């Protein structure tokens, strides 16, 4: 039996009986409900192969990418509870409004900004340089908001930029081609930024891409501390 959240912030769980199949994913279950049992169910997905970051939901209390989560892995006593992501406003059923999540990427200056024009040659970056190694560790984020949904600091402090935005800022701070480092460090410092992180590591624990935003946030804390104490910031 699958219990699925229906409604917005106020609502209730609705129970469905869904047949089990081999290699069935949680997204398969939700799709079966919508296509066969109740066409009014709202949910979001796109690629179905773990690339787009659209289908994250709370499954049995844990935020997960549903297209790559097998039912076998999460089902308990043939029961499953599926809810929208935490820490984001619910539009309807399993669909959350992710505007705030992506607005915070912009607030964290998550856009690359290089000094070169298209008339100049590519800037060469050595793959084994320390900066590039740090970037590689965090660059595969798909923007699914599982980390944001799992973060207690976000739920306590709505201004907090959150793990994904800070991880993005970190990958740009360590990108030697980027030219807005100081501006970016200023944007992610302080109470709404990296200094509010308590290093609970829920983001790192639940990230489906095995990224450690916690490590990036710790890096930002160090960079900012040295920049402030050195008078650069």
């Amino acid at each position: 039996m699958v219990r699925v959240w229906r409604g917005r912030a106020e609502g209730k769980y609705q129970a469905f009986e869904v047949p089990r199949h081999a290699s069935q994913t949680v997204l398969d279950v939700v799709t079966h409900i919508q296509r066969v049992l109740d066409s009014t169910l709202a949910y979001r997905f796109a690629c179905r192969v773990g690339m787009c970051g659209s289908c994250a939901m709370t499954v049995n209390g844990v935020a997960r990418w549903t297209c790559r989560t097998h039912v076998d892995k999460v089902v308990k006593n043939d029961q499953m509870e599926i809810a929208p992501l935490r820490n984001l406003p619910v539009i309807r059923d399993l669909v959350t409004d992710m505007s705030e999540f992506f607005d915070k990427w912009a607030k964290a200056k998550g856009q690359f900004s290089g000094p070169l024009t298209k008339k100049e040659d590519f800037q060469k970056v050595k793959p084994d340089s320390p900066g590039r190694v740090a970037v590689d560790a965090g660059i595969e984020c798909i923007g699914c908001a599982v980390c944001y949904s799992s973060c207690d600091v976000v739920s306590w402090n709505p201004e907090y930029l959150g793990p994904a935005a800070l991880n993005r800022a970190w990958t740009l701070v360590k990108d030697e081609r980027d030219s807005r480092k100081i501006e970016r460090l200023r944007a992610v410092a302080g109470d709404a930024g990296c200094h509010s992180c308590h290093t609970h590591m829920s983001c790192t624990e639940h990230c489906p891409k095995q990224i450690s935003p916690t490590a990036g946030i710790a890096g930002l804390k160090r960079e900012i501390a040295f920049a402030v104490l050195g008078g650069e910031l």
Partner: protein
Amino acid sequence: MNFRTQTFLWVAQRASAAVLALCVTVHLATMVYAIRGGLSAAEILSRTKGSVGWLMFYTVFVLAVTVHAPIGLRSVVTEWFGWRGAARDVFLLGLAMLLAAMGMRAVFGVFL
């Protein structure tokens, strides 16, 4: 409060935590060692009165607490009770001064 001050607070809390780790270790180890043969106020005072070493040690200890505790409480009152803004920071500054005053009173109480 701007991001620079917030960053300074973060650095100050980490630095004071490092000092406290050392101070608490020395404090506990000394206590365990000192009470082997029983504990009396007179015995403690005989060691601390006029001891510039202990005066300096506990002064550092108290000042580290004064820095560390209010910054930690700032996060607690913000996250648990939603208290933000200047009034919160003024309250915590007052708390820091109270901790410093009470702590230093105790330090001088066993030194003088």
